[in-house]
């Protein structure tokens, strides 16, 4: 491991992996993950799959909120658009998942751009309100457009299949989710090495200066909505394949809030942080559940208390992070790495 920054060129400054060591570490991590189904139980894989979905959605939201500075409370709605598109395309037209997943992403991107139009005039709080409205409008559509969405009864989604191979178990789905997540994460990391990504960051930091520098603010804001919603749409599509039945209840407003929480806890403006945040917020309730069900035999009231405990823990974690660690887990991770870089001679 190297113990300092030795950057001598611009290329070195924008490289994804600082050293061959960090690249190998990530690769090793992926290989270990790929071997997971060999020893993990079905339920554990279910949780891992949910982590993957949450991670994709959180990366998408971070592109918009963390990198471009546009607050969105409409994430659950875009997730719904992706999921329903998959349900309709796969269920009614029988398209294979290789087509439905990107198409769902595109459908969500289109929806995201439509609801991004108010960002032409609105900023901050007011934009958050507009996306909140988007949520309720999509929810109403999902509930009442029975012909496509199946209304409140929901709609069932066939298993993703490749030839005669069906992704119908958690382990099989895992091998579908892992590459998609890895690819999208890599893409997002790369995005911020390009002109587009830099334009997003310029808009976040100071939109008027960005305009002066030749960034077409509105166009790039819309693009940010598009890219972000594409990610969320893909996550929705995977959600559809995992849950196999989609109803408006899959996409409550609290889901959008959860995802904002993931991004905040992981760290605004950090792709890596979004993944940390997503995994953290997905595992937290599972740990709590394991703990309460372990103790439920001696304290039967805990089953009833699980829901408020989960909700309270969510609120508490958010408040604590905002007050004590506003830069999130990503910043903490950097600090830990920095500490070990110089270990045992830290100053």
């Amino acid at each position, binding site marked *: 491991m190297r113990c300092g920054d030795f950057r001598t060129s611009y290329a070195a400054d924008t490289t994804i992996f600082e050293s061959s060591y960090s690249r190998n570490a990530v690769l090793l991590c992926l290989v270990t993950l790929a071997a997971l189904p060999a020893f993990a139980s079905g339920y554990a894989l279910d949780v891992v799959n949910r982590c993957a979905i949450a991670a994709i959605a959180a990366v998408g939201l971070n592109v918009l909120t963390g990198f471009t500075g546009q607050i969105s409370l409409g994430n659950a709605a875009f997730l719904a658009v992706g999921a329903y598109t998959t349900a309709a395309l796969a269920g009614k037209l029988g398209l294979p998942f290789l087509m439905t997943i990107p198409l769902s992403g595109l459908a969500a991107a289109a929806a995201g751009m439509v609801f991004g139009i108010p960002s032409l005039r609105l900023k*901050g709080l007011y934009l958050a309100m507009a996306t909140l409205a988007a949520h309720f409008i999509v929810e109403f559509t999902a509930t009442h457009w029975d012909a496509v969405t199946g209304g409140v009864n929901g709609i069932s989604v066939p298993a993703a299949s490749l030839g005669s191979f069906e992704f119908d178990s958690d382990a099989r789905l895992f091998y579908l989710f892992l590459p998609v997540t890895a690819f999208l994460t890599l893409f997002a990391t790369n995005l911020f090495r390009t002109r587009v990504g830099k334009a997003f960051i310029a808009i976040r930091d100071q939109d008027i200066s960005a305009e002066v520098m030749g960034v077409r603010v509105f166009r790039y804001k819309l693009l940010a909505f598009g890219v972000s919603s594409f990610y969320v749409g893909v996550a929705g599509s995977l959600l559809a394949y995992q849950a196999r039945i989609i109803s408006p209840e899959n996409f409550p407003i609290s889901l959008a809030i959860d995802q904002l929480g993931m991004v905040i806890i992981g760290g605004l403006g950090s792709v890596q942080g979004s993944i940390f945040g997503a995994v953290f917020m997905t595992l937290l309730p599972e740990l709590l559940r394991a703990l309460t069900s372990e103790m439920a035999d001696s304290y039967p009231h805990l089953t009833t208390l699980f829901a408020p405990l989960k*909700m309270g823990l969510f609120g508490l974690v958010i*408040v604590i992070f905002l007050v004590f660690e506003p830069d999130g887990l990503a910043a903490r991770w950097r600090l830990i790495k920095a500490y070990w870089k110089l270990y045992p001679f830290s100053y």
Partner: protein
Amino acid sequence: MDFFLQLLVNGIVVGSIYALVALGFVVIYKSSSILNFAQGEFLMLGAYVCLAIMTTTPVPLWAAFLLTLAFSVTLGLLLERVVLRPMIGEPVISVIMLTLGLSSLLRAVVQGIWGTDTRPFPPVFPSEPVHLGPFPVSQGYLWSVGCVALLLLAFALFFKYARAGIAMRATAFSQQVALSMGISVRHMFALSWSIAAVVSAVGGVLLGAVRGGVDGSLAVFGLKVVPVVILGGLDSVLGAIVGGVAIGVLENLSGGYLDPFFGGGVKEVAPFVALVLILMVKPYGLFGKVRIERV
């Protein structure tokens, strides 16, 4: 015609409750530029605390009500001190998330203590409606109309003449200038949070009495009122009231006339459709202050 007028009257009285909750939003936003998404939870907590005092102690209604208000003042002060003060100067997203986190936390506390069943509220108003001309109206809603009128008057006077009120306006205008004029910005923030908590608690108790029961669904008012404040303008007391009534009427008319075509649910979504339209046409609402950005 009768149908229309009855919907209109109902919209106005229901809207008065929205106006009451919106007032809390506006007071906080006016002094600290924070949109408090936990407002609905303040309301719910107020209703539960009042109910708990009434059912566990022998005090009469008015005393329970005053105790609830005292509790709300304490709650507002505490929250401002513990969680909101570190947020001064943080980006909007953090502040929004903080109030959202706070709302989960408060809801969890209420659910943990009182559970989720509907708890019957002791009868406060007679269940017989009052007739306004030919239109029957619940007595509870009339009380809420009265409260709103009273609060409007009180706030108008407060912001115009009271020292604290003027100081709050100064704080909202520019915190630095306010500080240099010897105004304690922290005290102003604390004051605004207490006022907001009190106003919400009044709304909560009224709603509990009108519905005859208290449960977790009272918290939805926090989100329902968002279109109200956007319509009226986030920093206008008058706007909150006009917006409240307008959204109440919109809900009832759209419910009455459009529900049969859409298979229900129009009432819930209409305010948000209106919200998008308002934001496109008049982003700062009917009475809000237009902010001009300069580099």
